[in-house]
């Protein structure tokens, strides 16, 4: 629309235009808000202000003024909001209670070296630690109990395991189907198959979860004869079902956008339909297919309900026939029992922020690749 008019002549028009522009910024605003408010709840962990150590060096109430508010707040295990509401006298009382509580800790527990550890330090979040009573250093996620262990490596491993199984299952199938539908199938077949596969994405993930839980788990167990009925393998395959339509649509779109001249030239030179698809169209569309896999990855690590329903125990194991707990599952299952503002709550939000960052990067990468690929293809058309 190349027609521009002076806005002074039409103030109403000008206002409406500005309004439309402002509303259209809401998508940007939302992305920013999501990141800000998910990260905000996790800030104390990032800055090391959270302290979960049970046995602490008590601060005598008389020395209250020597410490910074942030230190006091962490020491008293309060949220910033609670802390702000309290006056000095209340804080003093709380500090007395804290000193008494420290004195009440049983003797044997006081001697436990783990009770002096602040388990939300980076060191304990990522590295293996030899906990009291364990023979070797281990990665443990155990957010309830007296000593809360927040090692997030088992969750990473669980997520990776389930996601990779899902992608290994989904990518070949979805790309194969995309090649078939876009290159080999007759137009009439294409018009039926394409919406049918897109319908698969219309199935809610809880429904796929129920199917995996009741039907697939049994079928796969009788096929592969493994021990635990519900494991990362079943979850991964079910996850694959959810990712197939995503990968399929993007890959199919990429394959179709390869200029017709390529195909016609190859066919004219005597190559078969398959040779054309495999040696001419697929290589040309490779960036698009790659982007499809990347976006599928983003979708897979973000999927919650399927994995939540199919497997949930957080064991540190690389075996695909063991249970696994992914990051999304952990957040969904444990948020209800986490005390608002407490260390567990903060760490769950931190996991959410990490997840957001991971999908943000994979989305950006996928979109960038597709954008470049499309403009290249359009130039050649």
């Amino acid at each position, binding site marked *: *629309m190349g*027609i521009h008019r002076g806005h002074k002549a*039409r103030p109403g*028009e000008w206002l409406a235009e500005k*309004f*439309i522009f402002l*509303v*259209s*910024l*809401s*998508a*940007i605003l*939302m*992305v920013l808000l*999501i990141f800000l*408010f*998910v990260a*905000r*709840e996790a800030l104390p962990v990032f800055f090391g202000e959270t302290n979960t150590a049970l046995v602490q060096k008590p601060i005598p109430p008389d020395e209250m003024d020597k410490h910074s508010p942030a230190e006091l707040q962490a020491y008293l295990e309060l949220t910033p909001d609670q802390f702000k509401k309290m006056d000095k006298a209340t804080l003093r009382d709380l500090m007395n209670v804290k000193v008494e509580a420290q004195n009440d800790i049983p003797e044997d527990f006081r001697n436990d070296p783990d009770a002096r550890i602040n388990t939300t330090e980076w060191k304990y979040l990522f590295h293996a630690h030899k906990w009291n009573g364990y023979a070797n250093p281990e990665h443990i996620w155990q957010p309830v109990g007296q000593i809360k262990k927040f090692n997030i490596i088992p969750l990473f491993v669980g997520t990776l395991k389930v996601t990779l199984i899902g992608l290994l299952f989904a990518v070949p199938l*979805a790309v*194969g*189907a995309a090649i*078939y539908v876009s290159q080999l199938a*007759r137009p009439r077949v294409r018009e039926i198959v394409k*919406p*049918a*596969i897109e*319908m698969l994405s*219309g*199935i*809610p993930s*809880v*429904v796929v979860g*129920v*199917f995996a*839980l*009741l*039907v697939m788990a049994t079928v796969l167990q009788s096929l592969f004869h493994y021990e635990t009925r519900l494991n990362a393998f079943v979850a991964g395959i079910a996850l694959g079902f959810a990712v*197939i339509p995503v990968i399929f649509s993007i890959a199919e779109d990429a394959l179709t956008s390869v200029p017709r001249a390529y195909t*016609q030239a190859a066919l004219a030179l005597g190559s*078969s*339909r*398959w*040779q054309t698809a495999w040696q001419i169209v697929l290589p040309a569309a490779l960036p698009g297919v790659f982007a499809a896999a990347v976006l599928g990855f983003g979708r897979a*690590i*973000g*999927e919650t309900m399927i994995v*939540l329903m199919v497997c949930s125990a957080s064991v540190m194991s690389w075996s695909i026939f063991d249970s696994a707990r992914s990051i*999304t599952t952990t957040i*969904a299952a444990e*948020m209800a029992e986490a005390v*608002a503002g407490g260390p567990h709550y903060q760490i769950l939000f931190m996991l*959410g922020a990490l*997840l*957001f960052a991971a*999908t*943000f990067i*994979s*989305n950006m990468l996928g*979109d960038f690749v597709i954008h470049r690929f499309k403009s290249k293809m359009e130039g050649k058309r």
Partner: protein
Amino acid sequence: MNTVTPSQYLPESSSDTTRMTRHFRAEKFDFWSFFFSGLTGLATLFILGILATILLNIIVNGWNGLSWHFVSTIPKKDFFDIHTTGVLPMIVGTAFRVIVMTIFVIPVGVITAIYLTEYAANTSVITRIIRAAVNNLAGVPSIVFGLFGLGFFINFVGKNMDKLLHNASAVWGQPALIWASLTLAVMTLPVVIVATEESLKAIPPGLREASLALGATKLETILKIVLPQALPGIMTGGILAVSRAAGEVAPILFTGVAYYMASLPSHLSDQFMDLGYHVFVLSTQSPNIEQTRPILYATVLVLLMLTFALNIVAILIRARVRKKLRALQ
């Protein structure tokens, strides 16, 4: 097949290439071509097979449990008993949250799409950032939306509303229907934007030019010419958003869903029961899986019928819009 007349090689139209190549293949049979083409065909069949299996499994197992009594009963606290249970509050809750969501998401989504197609220059930096943001929003994991709803809508907006309006007693600063709906609105924003944009692009530029040439302003053109034409596309976007949101559970886990409520939700600050969440509860929290199974399947069938009916309508309208778009190009 031995004698080939030249006329068979002459393509009548571009869609004839398929027939031509099939002719070549018949003359020189290439095993590997046949083998690999077959493999891709099998992959397609396999995916369709999965789809069919899931649907059939649920329809066959769920059909018997479905009755008027089932969809119209408010269950007692113990909803694992097949004879007295029902899903009315879940249907109402799901419908309620989806309707509230639509009220928020459609205007914002449509206005954004109007800006992107009618006003923005395609190359400008701000347009590219908006597009990137929309794409990103579409890829954010649903559980992160749940965290966002909790961190922003409940802990920030709701708590501050309570401070201002209710003397800090908890009315809005807790999980509620409105927060779940708003969270879902943020999640489905890209769906509405993309569908609306698609339908706006399918409107011939000539229509706009004619309107402008007759002296209508740009805003008048958009409101009176472009939008009425784009209505089917906007409806598609709305329906797709609704069907996506109706099946989502993760975003509402912390923002409004309740395990059990004795009455139907009546206020925006109420919690609600939900079909998808109920499916999750039935399949994971049941004391006796075998007894719960018929209820579970019937509930899944209700959920699936709801989302699928919406999806099919959306697909049909979209097919019409796309046909129009293709005719233009």
